[in-house]
């Protein structure tokens, strides 16, 4: 028999979720190692120079860079082992508590054995070939993350006249970054009839800089010989189809795509993890364990989050799950109850609960609504919300004391409209 270095838990991905999982694993006394493919740990917040990070975790409003520096400091203090420039090639599941991770490193291929695995490899950006934008493919087309890396890590301006596709917070924040650095932001184009990001970002990113926002519009076509020269924009109807005759052109040299993120789950799919088509991440139970025993997921690899605080909580929870798994030689439960999606719920994580422990839910709605309640009727849970929007995750906790009253074989999340006053 070959022998490999043995771990209790291997964490794949050195962003906020993976770092938080590694810290918690170490605190719980597990033998662990963190594997990161880039040269540096930190992930996405390294390039997020704007504030709005860590209000819950560190109790202060930090920039992404400040947040990740503080988290890395905590990790260094506690002494977490890690590998950088290490690419996870594949996972072999030998039994419920025996997995081999094949890692390509600068010193050759390493085979590591572990009882549990926390997968926190983040997400990738939707690229132009996944949109319906046709036409030329010249220089000047970037995803928001690529532009952010160029500007805020390397100090290079990707362009001077910019059109941004997508009005989620990422698109809005990048529009402001370009405007602040002296570029002309020609327009932000949004397919939906409402802005994707927070209202405060519409105000401080667009209105502050007089950037026009086109709702119910799409970019149909890119034109340009060597560099982007213009884009063709069209209005869309209620079923989001372009309306003929509404086309107009915007001159620009740069097109920024802020059209959403997709969890990186290729490696999980190859070991047979079931994927939820709504989140595009794995199906998990309340400890974020996937359908392959002992394999956990956290952060944007699990579900696209909109706050780093949620990501960190998921990393910690996955580590606690791995600890319980090891202590019990498997996840103890008397049966998993499915979480059903009721009225105006588009996605919900976790997908299964035991009813025996506290559960934090992460849900998104299908359509924006005001004056609503999120409810779990089986346990008579209600929480009033001022407004819900697809771009904003709804997070709430059900206590085990409340779940003890659960008689039904399932729980349902639903958003119910309250009567207007």
């Amino acid at each position, binding site marked *: 028999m070959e022998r490999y270095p043995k771990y209790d838990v291997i964490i794949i991905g050195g962003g906020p979720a993976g770092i938080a999982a590694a810290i918690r694993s170490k605190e719980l006394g597990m033998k662990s190692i963190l594997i990161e493919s880039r040269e540096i740990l930190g992930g996405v917040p390294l390039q997020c*120079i704007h504030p709005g990070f860590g209000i819950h975790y560190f109790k202060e409003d930090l920039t992404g860079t400040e947040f990740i*520096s503080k988290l890395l400091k905590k990790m260094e203090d506690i002494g977490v082992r890690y590998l950088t420039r290490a690419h996870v090639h594949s996972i072999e599941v030998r039994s419920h508590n025996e997995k081999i991770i094949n890692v390509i490193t600068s010193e050759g291929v390493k085979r590591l054995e572990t009882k549990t695995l926390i997968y926190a490899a983040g997400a990738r950006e939707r690229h132009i070939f996944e949109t319906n934008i046709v036409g030329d493919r010249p220089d000047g087309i970037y995803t928001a993350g690529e532009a952010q890396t160029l500007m805020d*890590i390397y*100090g290079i301006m990707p362009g001077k006249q910019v059109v941004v596709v997508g009005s989620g917070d990422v698109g809005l924040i990048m529009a402001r970054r370009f405007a602040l650095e002296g570029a002309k932001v020609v327009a932000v184009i949004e397919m939906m009839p409402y802005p994707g990001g927070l209202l405060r970002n519409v105000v401080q990113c667009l209105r502050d800089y007089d950037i026009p926002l086109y709702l119910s519009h799409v970019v149909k076509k890119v034109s340009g010989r060597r560099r982007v020269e213009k884009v063709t924009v069209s209005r869309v109807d209620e079923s989001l189809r372009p309306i003929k005759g509404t086309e107009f052109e915007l001159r620009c040299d740069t097109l920024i795509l802020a059209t959403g993120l997709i969890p990186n789950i290729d490696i999980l799919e190859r070991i047979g993890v079931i994927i939820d088509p709504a989140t595009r991440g794995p199906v998990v139970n309340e400890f974020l364990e996937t359908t392959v025993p002992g394999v956990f997921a956290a952060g944007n690899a699990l579900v696209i989050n909109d706050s780093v605080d949620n990501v960190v909580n998921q990393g910690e929870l996955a580590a606690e799950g791995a600890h319980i798994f090891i202590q019990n030689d498997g996840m103890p439960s008397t049966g998993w109850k499915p979480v059903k999606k009721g009225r105006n719920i588009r996605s919900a994580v976790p997908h299964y609960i035991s009813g025996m422990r506290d559960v934090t839910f992460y849900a998104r709605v299908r359509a924006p609504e005001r004056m609503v309640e999120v409810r779990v009727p089986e346990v008579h849970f209600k929480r009033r919300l*001022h407004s819900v929007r697809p771009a*904003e995750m709804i997070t709430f906790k059900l206590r085990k004391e409340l779940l003890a009253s659960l008689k039904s074989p399932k729980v349902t999340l639903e958003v119910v409209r309250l009567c207007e006053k």
Partner: protein
Amino acid sequence: MREVREIVCLICPNSCVMKVYLEDKKILRVEGNMCPRGEEYAKQEIIQPKRVVISVIKVRGGDMPTVSVKTENPVPKSCIPKIMKLLSRIELDAPVSMGQVVIKDVCGTNIVATRDVRRKPAPKL
């Protein structure tokens, strides 16, 4: 003269839409805020709108080519172009540490670094 102005609060993700009632440019009352910070913000926004400015400054000889920076406190919106011009003109030498004041006393505040840049050759693109 009576006037009502609508202001969206930028303090937290709730993004409260507030109404500020004015009479002869004097603030009478603020409505629609869910917390006292909203009222404070609305009043400041009427008197003099302020924002935190974020950007990057070039760094020589660091393990990263730039250091991210912010204004320690929000600055009047009218000061933003002046600050951006200043930031584009300067270059720092590594190392720079998080929290370090890189420019003192601009528009009544300081410019501080928001990440560490260690002394090392810059990574190749």
